[in-house]
């Protein structure tokens, strides 16, 4: 009985996590929604089966069996023919019932699978090429001609109500793109291209995380999917398309110089400057992102300073070099990067 109570409590706990980020049972998109429905259907069926099996099992502990005579087993160890044939009928019936239940689960599963893949026939999908790296995400927005037009990292914005195709690949090891509020996961496999359609039906910020063990900092390979109404998305997209403006403020200009003169340019690109390397996240609109180091820390000047000065302290083992920045150069650099909105 306490088991049952425990289970009911957990069901409540689960449903009460409406509004919780990165939860598969808090869908914000049509696919996650259908999967969540399938989940609740399975949950009900399976819990019922479990409770029934446990009821029968625990019932055997009672001394008096209903309707089956006590066999004189101590001497013969053999139940009567009547008992055995009754058991045969019961067990056969249960096996048939099992087959039927499994068929129902199978059909519902395949039907849901078909439904969620039907999105891929939409004409006006947005394609985002997603490349997994140890331990950050590169995103490239493609237009209908598959010409790349926007490169960013660790955070994507998508329009509400429009299907988005995540075309996945990897530069190094296997990663997995997973934003549970919107859809299941898709692996990013080197030497292959995988595809998954997602769609958000409600505006919001949805957290995603790499879901295939990819090394030391697999725990800190997070990304954000911000779903916005179409006009707001267009505004974001257009501003992201602009290259970074040369700052007029002397402090930020100095920061730009610090960036361009240091080893930063070996990995990071800022469109509008000479820095064009793609080994690390593109920083053109770094200031507009919510987090740094692939979701590890909120994007604040303090955190950014700590990251630049000692990346290994924040995310031990990550591939960003520790660059010695003078104390008088650090604040301008931070100001410059945060100004790249």
């Amino acid at each position, binding site marked *: 009985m306490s088991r049952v109570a425990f289970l009911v409590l957990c069901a409540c706990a689960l449903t009460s996590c409406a509004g919780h980020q990165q939860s598969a049972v808090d869908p914000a998109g049509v696919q996650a929604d259908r999967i969540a429905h399938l989940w609740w259907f*399975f949950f009900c069926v399976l819990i019922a089966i479990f409770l029934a099996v446990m009821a029968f099992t625990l019932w055997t502990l009672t001394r008096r069996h209903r309707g089956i005579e006590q066999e004189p087993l101590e001497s013969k160890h053999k139940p009567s023919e009547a008992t055995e044939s009754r058991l045969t009928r019961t067990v056969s019936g249960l096996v048939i019932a099992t087959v039927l239940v499994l068929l129902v689960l199978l059909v519902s599963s395949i039907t849901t699978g078909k439904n969620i893949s039907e999105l891929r026939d939409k004409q006006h999908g947005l394609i985002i090429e997603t490349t997994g790296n140890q331990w950050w995400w590169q995103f490239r927005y493609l237009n209908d001609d598959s010409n790349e037009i926007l490169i960013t990292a660790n955070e994507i914005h998508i329009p509400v109500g429009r299907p988005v195709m995540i075309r996945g690949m990897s530069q190094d090891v296997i990663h997995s793109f997973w934003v549970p509020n919107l859809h299941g996961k898709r692996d990013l496999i080197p030497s292959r291209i995988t595809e998954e359609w997602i769609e958000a039906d409600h505006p919001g910020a949805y957290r995603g995380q790499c879901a295939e063990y990819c090394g030391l900092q697999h725990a800190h390979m997070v990304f954000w999917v911000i779903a916005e109404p179409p006009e707001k998305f267009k505004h974001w997209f257009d501003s992201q398309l602009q290259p970074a403006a040369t700052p007029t403020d002397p402090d930020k200009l100095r920061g730009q110089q610090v960036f361009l003169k240091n080893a930063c340019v070996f990995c990071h690109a800022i469109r509008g400057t000479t820095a064009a390397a793609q080994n690390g996240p593109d920083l053109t609109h770094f200031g507009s992102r919510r987090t740094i180091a692939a979701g590890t820390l909120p994007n604040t000047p303090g955190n950014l300073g700590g990251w630049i000065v000692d990346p290994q302290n924040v995310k031990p083992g990550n591939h960003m070099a520790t660059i010695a920045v003078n104390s008088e150069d650090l604040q301008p650099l931070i100001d410059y990067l945060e100004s790249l909105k």
Partner: protein
Amino acid sequence: MNRSDHVTPTTGGEARELRLLEQAWRHPRGIFGWLSYTTHQAIGLRYIVTAFIFLLVGGIEALLMRIQLAVPNNTFLSPDRYNEIFTTHGTTMMFLFAVPVMEGMGIYLVPLMLGTRNVAFPRLNAFGYWMYLCGCIFLYWGVFTNAAPDAGWFAYPPLAGPQFDPGKRVDFWAQMITFTEVSAMCVAAELIATIFKMRAPGMTLNRIPLFCWSMLVQSFMVIFAMPSIMIASSFLLSDRTLGTHYVNPAEGGDPLLYQHVFWFFGHPEVYIIFIPALGFVSHIISAHSRRAVFGYPAMVLSVVATGFIGFGLWVHHMFATGLPQIGEAYFTASSMMIAIASGAQIFCWIATLWTGRLRMTTALHFVFGFIAIFVFGGLSGLVLASVPLDLQVHDTYFVVAHFHYVLIGGALFPLFGAFYHWFPKMTGRLLNEALGKLNFWVLFIGFNLTFFPMHILGLKGMTRRIYTYPPEMGWGAANHLATIGAAIIALGGLLFIANVLLSRRRGQIAGDDPWDADTLEWAASSPPANYNFEYLPVASSRSPLWDPPEERAIVTGLRNDRREALVTTLMDAEPHHRYVLPGPTIWPLITAIAVTVGFAGSVFNGWYIFWGAGLTGIGLIGWFWPRRPLELKP
């Protein structure tokens, strides 16, 4: 009053025969002698004790992980150390504990249940154990020299490949696989030969004990599945050390090829662990409910069906890799279909319990625990079988919960039940029942407290194999609970060890058959003599020890001045010829050392394969060199 089938020598002739028998089967003395044992009871116990030690090691690794995850942003373990520990935890549990302990129980129990004196290939048996032990030492040599593998227990390339995991870490992992798979294949071959050819006269296929059916199916699964992981680990090791391109994306290698070959083994592997446990459950239930398990033909067919279908499921581990939809549908269907076989078995067991006269021993407690936990795990498995659901919960703590439910519930609980049930046979003393029931409840509560919250964690987005997590995700409470549960499980383990240590010296004397059970091992003494039975029994039915004395028979005419057993025909177990078994010999150990030189050395320098092969050749020649007398006396 325990029933015994000992032949009390009534004549001087019989007393002399018994002395000869004891002399022929006597263990040799000293360390050298101990290293030369080839009796199945000794080797079975070695497997069980060694595996249990590694259960404890794996358990400590789990506790370390749980401490790190007890609170968000914990700094108890560095990311590198955490990754090493979760890798060695999984690897130790799967390869150094779960399969070997089932092999050990099989090696110990099968000859006794079949009514014979030893396995068909006693020297191969010894060799298999030494290979397993060398594999354990090899892996932990890596662990203690700061070269513990850290790419997960399945070591996917390219992460586990030469570019992203340089050094020897994954090499230790991959070659340890080779050791343990060679060991498992030796055991499988000898159990198949024993079960096919060395059964008691009268033990037709229809009368083989359910545990022996389990071991037969499991052995065939080992033979078909283990080569697959030999190839996968060899591909990986070869890419890492010899520059081949099997699974590296450069030059056409394919990471997904590795996954297919690995999981073609990996899925049957869990059934290899679980199917012997099903055998334990059948025997415990029949003894402690005092009736034979209901539906013997259905039980046998279910086990065989599980064995077959188990090979057709592997792609359900790869649903997130973007496979063609038709393939996905097939693997969903097969993954669900296997539940029919397991379900049939559960129903038959419940039917047995329903119509039995239950004796609520600790062993039966563990069986009830098995039913509760395994059924729950099997049901969560149906969630994983569904592709849309799997795409959400794959690689999350939901999967961790599922496989711990089916492995701990489905294999470890029956194993503990089996220990409580057969400990009196192995040692001659009963384990303490009061302490045993406490043991059960502590383990049951601790287990559920640890792993039940993980279902919820998975649905709430917590991925696997992360060394920490931030506080704002709301995962802290469930993780904290799980860590407390883990501590309780550890307590349960300690209680078991305490019970064993106490009962070995001061436990109640068991006699041959304390449970009034039905299968032939209970006709031997407790513990059995090296030769098991003074006169081999004849199997008069499926439950020979419950047959009235006038229906039971024994075999006479085997020579007692050498180690001799009986070979019977495959289908009807008619006596066919007598079979002389080898005595103690050091050559299996020497050969195992030779093979170890080859395997271990080749991880550092490829030429060691040839040295090892040469030494192994010498070992084998010594092993098989003809010994006098060349012609056997009839």
